């Protein structure tokens, strides 16, 4: 478990699957993106160890164990010493104090424990809250991928942001 000022990050447990699945049914979570479409709840439950084997996915919770969202690092590249980061807050917890703390804790793990030097984030244009959160942790814009993803019957641009180890303030 990794702790910040306001949040903790912990591994996804089997008991988290049902609330995550319900959230996914409403909002389409990136966590389930790699799982084939139209998969049943039973299948997810039975294959938990296969689907959630990746150690880079975390539950964001407050200090009282209320689940606030999820965050992850992925696309880890040891040669270039880089990875990507994603996060999602549950409706009702769109609070910069919480999201910034969560992203900061995860960035700290990536730089100080995994010894990587760069983090990328690919954020759809509609996710303004996520873009602003990354900006508050000193992520810089590297470009906009035009019409790169298809959501709700339209193509959306995707913002690329990145953070280097030297641009990361460990004391924030």
């Amino acid at each position, binding site marked *: 478990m990794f702790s910040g000022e306001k949040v903790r990050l912990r591994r996804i447990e089997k008991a988290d699957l049902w609330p995550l699945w319900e959230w996914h049914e409403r909002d389409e979570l990136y966590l389930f993106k790699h799982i084939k479409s139209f998969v049943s709840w039973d299948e997810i439950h039975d294959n938990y160890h296969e689907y959630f084997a990746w150690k880079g996915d975390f539950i964001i919770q407050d200090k009282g164990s209320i689940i606030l969202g999820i965050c992850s690092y992925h696309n880890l590249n040891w*040669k*270039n*010493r*880089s990875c990507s980061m994603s996060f999602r807050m549950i409706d009702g917890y769109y609070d910069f104090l919480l999201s910034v703390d969560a992203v900061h804790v995860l960035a700290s793990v990536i730089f100080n424990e995994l010894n990587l*030097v*760069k983090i*990328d984030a690919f954020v759809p244009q509609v996710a303004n809250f996520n873009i602003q959160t990354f900006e508050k942790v000193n992520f810089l814009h*590297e*470009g*906009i*991928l*035009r*019409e*790169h*993803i*298809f959501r709700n019957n339209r*193509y959306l641009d995707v913002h*690329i942001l*990145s953070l*280097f180890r030297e641009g990361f303030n460990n004391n924030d």
Partner: protein
Amino acid sequence: MADLPNVFEWSQDKELMKYYDELPINTSFEMEHILRQNISAVDRIDYIIEAKKRESIGRIFFSRINLEDKHLEIHTMVGEKKKRNMFFGAEAAFLMLLHAFHQLNMHKVYGRVMEYAKEAEILQKEMGFTKEAVFKKRYFQKGKYRNAFLYGLLDREFEDLLKSPKGQRYLAASQGRGKMRA
């Protein structure tokens, strides 16, 4: 697998491989393993570029094929030193773009280019790609972190290219010279 000797030989060319973000491949066996993985990958299609006399001169492939968002990444690699000029790369890329947009029904094709790959950058611009992002210090090559650019081409932009005199020339040329095979 008949192409394995050529593909392995190209992978040993350090001058060529500095343009690609790949780990060094040391044995032919290792390359065979990678090629077999590539053949069975669902998000990838590989081709060999052949010149007029059916000699293999390079590789061209799609990776990260995303059927939901309808985009993919294109990679062009002309391995034969004597054939490393604009013509072969451009014609091969044009044929692949036709394949991506007119057969696979993609919405977008994109490609990454190392900052020092000037010819590749010219090729992307020649095909109508737009520079969308600068990946700062993204790839570790020859002891340094290097910048790279991401270029993207949308389906409607490719159709505009096809209607232009330049596109018409490529279309005519591609039907008469050069061939590609899987």
